[in-house]
């Protein structure tokens, strides 16, 4: 019981993920800034932002449904943390492995997006309303390619569990086959995290902050936290599925390799943020279905062929 | 065509409506016409004389009359400034938004700042004064007293604390 509580609350649950997400946010912002030839924030900026938001006044719009309005940020946070508990980080085993945990994690990661949409809907502000429409439209655009891309390696391993996928690839170089799916996963992950070029649901210059427009103070802090944790969880998921190596006996080495893996993935995400302009929602739909979905399908086909061949 | 040639031409064509016409320099023509002939002349300036661009409309209060100046330009950069004078107590002009939709803001400005009634201007939001500006206060008129505003501010007691 105590062990389980420690797992949930401290390691690798809430506290660890919290610290890691703040570090991740700092790293992401610093990289983004340096690529734009700026200095970027000091190391304590994410913590300072978080504390500042917590101390601010909480304003709930008169039209909003107060109860749901307050609950949604927590839903987003909790579902992200739960997803994290089921991802193997630095051993080939997650905390609570079971068959089908890949699917479970993917669905847990969809929950925050839905809570954003609901948050926008219940805010009853025109900006949030447009934001909600865009969140849902975007969800339809990236979710299918993301699922296909993440599940392609699992198809090759003929299993829905992280443990078996990782042990299937073992120390062979077969994971290199999945690189196209990795590319699709990174791009769609960017869409899931709602960052440029896919920050359409919260496009600052169009709809202020989209679904979060009416959120202030602590509630907004939790949403931001959920967003940051999602970055880490998403990166961990992609790392576990596409880089199934570096799970040796030395735990410390494994830990360093894990950090390097997510650092690399966050770097790719930051790079994408630097290079492109924001797409329009219709362009996003076209892009996802015209380019990403076929690539992911192709990957699945390749994997099925390889499987038949072996 | 030089400004001098245009001057002669305009004088011949519109002799009945022109009150005065002068050439300040190359590309600057000043023209004062009778207010009642304005519309018909204006249309002809556009169609026949090539002054197809409306730069802006200026309204000014001379003390006895309200003057409205239409600054027109042709493609070579010649400017024709058409001046009409109207009665100060009940200033009325006709709209030109049917010819130049872009004149809308300028005409609203005349309404707001000088209290000119623009006939035929479609209803819309006022410009540039705030929506709750007091009725009948036209700041661009020479006899307008800005202290109307100051007094009220003092009364409310909050002085930039």
């Amino acid at each position, binding site marked *: 019981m105590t062990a389980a509580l420690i797992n949930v609350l401290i390691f690798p649950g809430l506290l660890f993920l919290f610290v890691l997400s703040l570090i991740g946010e700092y790293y992401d912002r610093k990289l983004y800034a340096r690529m*734009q*030839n*700026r200095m970027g924030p000091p190391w304590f900026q994410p913590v300072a932002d978080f504390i500042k938001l917590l101390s601010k*006044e909480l304003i709930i719009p008169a039209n909003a449904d107060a109860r749901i309005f307050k609950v949604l940020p927590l839903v987003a946070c909790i579902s992200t943390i739960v997803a994290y508990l089921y991802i193997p980080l630095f051993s080939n085993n997650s905390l609570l492995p079971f068959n089908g945990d890949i699917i479970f994690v993917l669905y847990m990661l969809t929950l925050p997006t839905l809570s954003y949409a609901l948050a926008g809907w219940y805010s009853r502000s*025109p*900006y949030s*309303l*447009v934001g909600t*429409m865009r969140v849902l439209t975007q969800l339809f655009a990236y979710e299918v390619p993301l699922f296909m891309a993440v599940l392609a390696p699992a198809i090759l391993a003929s299993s829905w569990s992280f443990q078996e996928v990782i042990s299937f690839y073992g120390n062979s170089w077969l994971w290199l086959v999945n690189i196209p799916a990795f590319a699709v996963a990174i791009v769609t992950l960017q869409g899931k995290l709602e960052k*440029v070029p896919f*920050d359409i649901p919260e*496009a*600052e*210059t*169009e*709809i*202020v902050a989209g679904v979060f427009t009416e959120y202030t103070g602590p509630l907004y802090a939790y949403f931001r936290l959920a967003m940051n944790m999602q970055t880490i969880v998403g990166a961990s998921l992609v790392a576990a599925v596409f880089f199934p190596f570096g799970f040796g006996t030395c735990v410390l080495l494994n830990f360093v390799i894990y950090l390097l893996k997510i650092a690399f993935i966050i770097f790719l995400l930051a790079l994408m943020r*630097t*290079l492109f*302009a*924001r*797409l*329009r*929602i*219709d*362009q996003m739909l076209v892009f996802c279905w015209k380019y990403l979905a076929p690539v992911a399908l192709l990957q699945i086909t390749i994997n099925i062929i390889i499987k038949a061949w072996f | 065509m030089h400004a001098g040639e245009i001057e002669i031409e305009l004088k011949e064509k519109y002799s009945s409506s022109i009150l005065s016409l002068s050439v300040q320099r190359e590309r600057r023509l*000043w023209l004062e016409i009778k207010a009642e002939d304005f519309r018909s002349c204006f249309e002809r300036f556009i169609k026949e004389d090539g002054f*197809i*661009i409306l*730069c*802006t409309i*200026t*309204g*000014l*209060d001379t003390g006895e009359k309200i003057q409205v*100046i239409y*600054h027109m330009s042709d493609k070579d*950069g010649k*400017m024709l*400034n058409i001046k009409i004078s109207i009665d100060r107590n009940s200033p009325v002009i006709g709209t030109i938004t049917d010819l*130049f*939709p*872009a004149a*809308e*803001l300028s005409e609203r400005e005349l309404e707001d700042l000088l209290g000119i009634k623009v006939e035929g201007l479609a209803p819309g*939001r006022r*410009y*540039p*004064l*705030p929506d*709750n500006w007091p009725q009948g206060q036209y*700041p*661009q008129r020479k006899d307008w007293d800005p202290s*109307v*505003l100051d007094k*009220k*501010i003092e*009364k409310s007691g*909050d002085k930039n*604390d």
Partner: protein
Amino acid sequence: MTKRIVIPVGPQHPALKEPASFDVTLQGERVADILVKVGYNHRGIEKGCEGRPYLHCVYLLERVCGICSHSHSTCFIQAVEEVANVKIPERAAYIRSIFGELERIHSHLLWLGVAAHEIGFDTLLMYSWRDREVVMDLLALLAGNRVNYAVNVIGGVRKDITEEEKEQILKAVDILEERTKYYIQVATEEVSFIERLSKVGYISYEDALRLGAVGPTGRASGIKRDVRKDDPYAAYEEVEFNVITDDHCDVYGRAVVRVKELMEAYSIIRQLIKKLPQTALAVNVPKNIPAGEAVARYEAPRGEDIHYLKSNGTDKPDRVKLRAPTLANVQSVAKMLENGNFADVPIVIAAIDPCFSCTDRMIVASNDLLSAKENRMTWKQLREFSIDWYKKNKGVDFSKIKKLGK
């Protein structure tokens, strides 16, 4: 979807750096209707000029707008000089043109950054504003200020350009030219940039003419109008340059026109520096300007700027009227957005390079007379409210902290 929602873009909105209001009626993501309201920034400058000596008017008009400050002061001074029948020394005309072009460079680089930001391309914003610092530093060196240069006086200019400064200008222009070539490449080749800009905010040649679009907005629709060519002022008759036009008629075309105009500006500055004649800087103009009236035109970075001046023989003008380029352009925004996407609203508004300070020129500060109904808080009330709030909700008592400055 039949339900329509009205999205207020402005008076305060992250897409707009200045107050203006665009009420966008949306049908899904499509713009069904748009209602433009300007006038939030009316500061009574025209009226203010009437009570001030000409010398003060120059400084007041320079502050109509921060970006095109030189445009407004030069345009006004041209009108004054025409009424007073003064011919300025040649060197003064050249220096005015040099400042005008430097201003155009910084304005267009600023626009490029803003436009990039509106479509979420912050990297380009950072790069172009970083490079804009080169010209801002140059202006600070030449004039002493980054904006509101105060180089103009009635009858000429106040600041000279020394040999050493000439070198620095040329050096800066070389750096900027190289960077601008890069931006031309980015603007014309980067896919995501083009995708967001082309076929957005379309306005045909006829519509642009009818709605009176000026400057780069008009030129991107093929209207070959440029006051520098049509009605030359300052030293523009002495230099050769092209009027850049484009036939895309969309936001992409406006971007291309602006970056290409930058290249023209560099060439103009080089020619002016090379030819800079050695004459006096200014002639003396008596304080009292003879009665008369004049209209002056000036090609500001955003388009044609027009000042009307009526003088009455005293040292104060009788009537000053100014028409900023944005006033001419803002009315075409509604047309550009017809059947557009909501996502394109910010960039289309930004594409005319709006400057509502120029457009409006007046607001009455603390106008409590206007309505007592509105719920307004004074500074004091706001402070008390916040102290109460923190006491009640956070248990912190801030009332002990002394008010700054007391």
